[in-house]
């Protein structure tokens, strides 16, 4: 098989599976639906891993080809095509692998759900859309994939169509993402105008020529075109990758079933923004302003969203805020031009966060779909596999030395430290403090759920048992990379020539260079890491969590009472939701009513349309008085008129 057919197969198989399962979802048996979609995604995953191997080990040539022409108009060639290089290879391997795990897991998680076939169809469709996004060789298809994953996310968040909170959350997710896409499409419009093309390679090659071009947006202020383009595109990423202030949809998206929280809202879709910026590195490198913007947004998200995780009581929401915070870390990496570190963290995070969500889902199955951690406790006794894998995920998340997250997070923090970009000082403190916060909320969750007193009711306790193998197998298969992938991948991804010609970093921005010089093997890296502040901060967080939630369980309540104002701020999520609800949602409705009632109904219809109709009616009603039909009236008028004329002429 030539490479083009391989890539086409990778993309189209999940689509085929989704279509078959989706169109027949009301007639085919459950098992058939999952066999069709799972085998299509498994094949796609096998091929993706094969492609991954070709690129990572065998130095496969970059593939860049058009599949078909969407349209040609005005010299603009818009196409659908694939660009497969090392970056794509990493992404498709991660996406299809996590997707496959989630597919298998779903058999167990959704076993009692009536929308079983439909669910499989959706997640297979999602896999297709995500693959289109990461394999695109142009902005148009990128936008297609971008919106298509948004569509499936919409369908899946609202999967439980009867639940009011779910159907509110999915609408909110779509609209907030559309705010990001508003920026994104303007960015694409700017690219189309200034580059005359939407093809990646053409755009990237031409980018340096445009570094001096500027456009005036308002008055005399002129902006570098590249800065404008980069910021606009990043606004799209802020929506999809849930960065402040467009992050508000992600916690609510937890209304969807847990498998998709793992797949879409942790491992893959939300990292699309990270991937996009890394892909666009030849543009971002030319605009330090945009990079600073990216950096500050990311750092803010990384720290402040982590804080909220401490006060959440829904098992999935804690992990959701953790995802926000970790996405912030990735964005910080992009901001300091350590794109490779961002992608590295994206990869490790995909494994351990999918693991955490799926393990949380396993707990939720055991708890009969109760997600409140205040009703849990000591679950390790009943669910040993879930317990161990959750612990592995947690350790990877807090960056415990040797685990996957350690390598990627350490790389990011060192990169920020080495950066001299405007805003990097702020970012450094944010990501450093974030490490403590991460360990604190992670182990708070871990201790409350798996240790301590058993707080569930008796009925639940009686039925509490380890989940079936279709659930635990994916946990184990995800736990393995959550431990090892960091150690294995750090050298090729960060210090090797893998991303040469794929990700562009200007020499003056190359913060990973320092790291590269100091790197003397995995062992030394781990040992060195244990002497750095992040390690101690993580330990501090772990210890604090243990002390507050295990050692002195009543203490958390004390702290809450003492820091009530702070607690309220966190509990209200800094007020973003209320603000949006009042100002944007309420404001739009008020404006709509005003324009409708005031503009259309009163001014246009009332005054202009019906008004003119009425005034004609009024005018004719006056005229009507003249036509009385009485002969003597007419005779009278004639005589008077004759007299008048007579006087006039005489």
């Amino acid at each position, binding site marked *: 098989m030539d490479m083009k057919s391989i890539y086409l197969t990778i993309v189209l198989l999940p689509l085929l599976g989704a279509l078959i399962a989706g169109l027949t979802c009301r007639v085919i048996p459950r098992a058939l639906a999952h066999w069709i979609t799972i085998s299509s995604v498994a094949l796609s995953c096998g091929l993706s891993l094969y492609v991954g191997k070709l690129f990572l080990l065998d130095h496969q040539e970059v593939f860049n080809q058009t599949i078909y022409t969407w349209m040609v108009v005005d010299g603009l060639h818009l196409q659908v095509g694939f660009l497969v290089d090392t970056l794509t290879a990493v992404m498709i391997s991660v996406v299809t692998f996590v997707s496959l795990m989630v597919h298998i897991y779903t058999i167990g998680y959704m076993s009692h759900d009536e929308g079983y076939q439909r669910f499989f169809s959706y997640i297979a469709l999602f896999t297709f859309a995500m693959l289109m996004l990461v394999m695109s060789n142009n902005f*148009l298809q990128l*936008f297609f994939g971008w919106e298509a994953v948004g569509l499936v996310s919409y369908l899946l968040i609202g999967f439980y*169509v*009867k639940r009011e909170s779910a159907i509110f959350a999915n609408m909110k997710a779509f*609209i907030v993402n559309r705010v990001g896409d*508003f920026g994104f499409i303007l960015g694409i419009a700017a690219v189309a105008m200034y580059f005359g093309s939407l093809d990646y390679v053409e755009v990237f090659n031409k980018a340096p020529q445009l570094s001096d071009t500027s456009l005036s*947006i308002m008055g005399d202020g002129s902006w570098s075109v590249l800065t404008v383009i980069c910021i606009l595109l990043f606004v799209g990423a802020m929506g999809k990758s849930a960065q402040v202030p467009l992050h508000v949809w992600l916690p609510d998206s937890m209304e969807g079933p847990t498998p998709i929280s793992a797949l879409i809202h942790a491992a893959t879709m939300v990292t699309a923004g990270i991937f996009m910026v890394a892909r666009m590195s030849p543009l971002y490198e030319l605009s330090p302003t945009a990079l600073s913007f990216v950096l500050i947004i990311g750092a803010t998200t990384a720290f402040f969203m982590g804080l909220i995780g401490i006060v959440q009581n829904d098992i999935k929401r804690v992990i959701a805020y953790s995802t926000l915070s970790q996405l912030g870390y990735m964005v910080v990496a992009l901001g300091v031009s350590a794109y490779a570190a961002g992608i590295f963290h994206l990869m490790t995070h995909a494994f351990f966060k999918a693991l955490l969500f799926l393990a949380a889902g396993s707990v939720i199955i055991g708890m009969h779909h109760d997600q409140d951690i205040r009703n849990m406790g000591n679950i390790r006794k009943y669910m040993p596999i879930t317990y161990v894998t959750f612990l592995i995920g947690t350790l990877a998340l807090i960056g415990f030395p040797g685990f996957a997250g350690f390598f990627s997070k350490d790389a990011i923090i060192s990169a920020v430290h080495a950066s001299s970009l405007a805003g990097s000082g702020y970012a450094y403190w944010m990501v450093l403090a974030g490490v403590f916060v991460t360990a604190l909320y992670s182990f708070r969750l871990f201790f409350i759920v798996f240790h301590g007193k058993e707080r569930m009711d008796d009925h639940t306790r009686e039925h509490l048992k380890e989940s079936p193998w279709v659930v635990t197998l994916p946990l184990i298969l995800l736990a393995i990379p959550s431990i090892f992938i960091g150690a294995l991948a750090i050298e090729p991804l960060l210090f090797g020539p893998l991303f040469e010609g794929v990700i562009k970093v200007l020499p003056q921005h190359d913060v990973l260079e320092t790291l590269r010089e100091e790197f003397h093997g995995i062992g030394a890296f781990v040992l060195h890491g244990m002497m750095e502040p992040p390690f101690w901060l993580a330990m501090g967080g772990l210890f604090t969590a243990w002390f507050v939630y295990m050692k002195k369980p009543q203490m958390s309540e004390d702290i809450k009472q003492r820091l009530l104002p702070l607690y309220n701020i966190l509990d209200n999520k800094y007020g973003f939701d209320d603000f949006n609800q009042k100002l944007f949602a309420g404001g739009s409705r008020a404006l709509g*009513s005003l324009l409708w009632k005031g503009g259309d109904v009163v001014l246009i219809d009332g005054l202009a349309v019906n008004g003119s109709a009425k005034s004609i009616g009024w005018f004719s009603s006056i005229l009507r008085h003249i036509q009385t039909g009485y002969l003597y009236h007419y005779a009278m008028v004639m005589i008077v008129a004759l007299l008048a004329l007579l006087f006039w002429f005489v």
Partner: protein
Amino acid sequence: MLADLPLLSFTIWTPIIGGFLVLMSGDKTPNVSRWLALFVAVLTFVISLPLYSDFDSQQVAMQFVERASWISQFNIEYYLGVDGISMPLILLTTFITILVLIAGWEVIQSKPSQYMAAFLIMEGIMVGVFSALDGVLFYVFWEAMLIPMFLIIGIWGGPNRVYATIKFFLYTFLGSVLMLVALIYMYYQSGSFDVLGFQRMPLNMTEQVLIFLAFLLAFAVKVPMWPVHTWLPDAHVEAPTGGSVILAAIMLKIGGYGFLRFSLPITPDASRELDWLMISLSLVAVVYIGFVALVQKDMKKLIAYSSISHMGFVTLGFFTVFMIAANSQANGGELLGMSGGMVQMVSHGFISAAMFLCVGVMYDRLHSRMIKDYGGVVNSMPIFAAFFVFFAMANAGLPGTSGFVGEFMVIIASFRADIWFAVLAATTLIIGAAYTLWMVKRVVFGEAGNEAVATMKDLNKREVLVLSTLLFAVLALGLSPAPLIDVMNTSIENLLSHIVISKIPG
């Protein structure tokens, strides 16, 4: 070979004559009239297909031309012809009419033969509007179009249909009177009613501005543009489903078509002079009307406002041309905006038709168009819900559907005229999604709103057939717009080459 036959005349007169036959078949045997009507509509569609297959997309001149003297004293001709701009609209007309007839199949129980006949006659007249190249012939078709639509709303319409029909009639009729004056004025200048002759005729600025304004009123009412749009929501609300579909899918396009066939080429200098006005009205339509759509309580009104907002993209795409041409940094893009406007018209034809049909499906079951009377429709009508969500997404401009193509092209084109035009136009991504999805949330999702909703029957085969045909069209145009773009390209290029040259004599 086919090109030698008077295909355009066939496409116009087959449905009109067929319509009268259906009318004569009477209401005693409704099934005979239904099948006869369907046969005529399908026949017309088949007759119209060679217009596409035998179309030479490289040819600048009008194709399938038919020309005969009609009223020789005034040099009025029976003069027909199509180019890449009108041909797709004719096919849209013949295609949508079939669906409308099927959609009204057993729904219309009162006077079915007259209903079917009205739509067939309407179809022929609309094809006539799109293919007439003589000013008087155009005007006759243009005005004749009002009669069947007036009857459709007036006979099969809702409770407030009298107000709606009068408003509809007065708006459109007043709009077109000045157009007649403009046509007659140009006749006195050129000695004929040849529209292509009008396009070549030199006119000074004052004449151009006056003619432009006369046309503007006629076309703006049809599109409709803000602030002469208020007839549309009323007409839609009162019209039966089929009437709404034809109104939204085709009649609105006649306004957009008028700008391309008359305003821009006949009065290019006035168009350039007044482009600020047109752009402002278009953006007002996109933004203002978007907000108005958000607060509608009646689904048909909501979709009607959404139509106005989407049609704003059409006029925006057409009239940003001059500013794009004037912008030295723009790297072209005039063609992009114009083609985008055209694609938007065709796409809106599919999507608005589908949206109105969806509302019609619900109306047939519950006899209400109010959002509050629904909720949780997905529980009783899952297949319908899937279609409705799909078309709603298309309405919100999701890539992969046709709704995206035109909006995308117009946004990236208007960016070249002024970044702020693009910013305002792109707000439709947010507002459009907001009003569409909010409606979907309240109508389709949730617990079944009431007993009546819970017992609604899902789509029958006929409805599935109609909606899936439209779904296929929406996807096909969204995934591969090239075939449509390719037939239009030469004609739009030709149009552009005309309008950038001043027509002011001396």
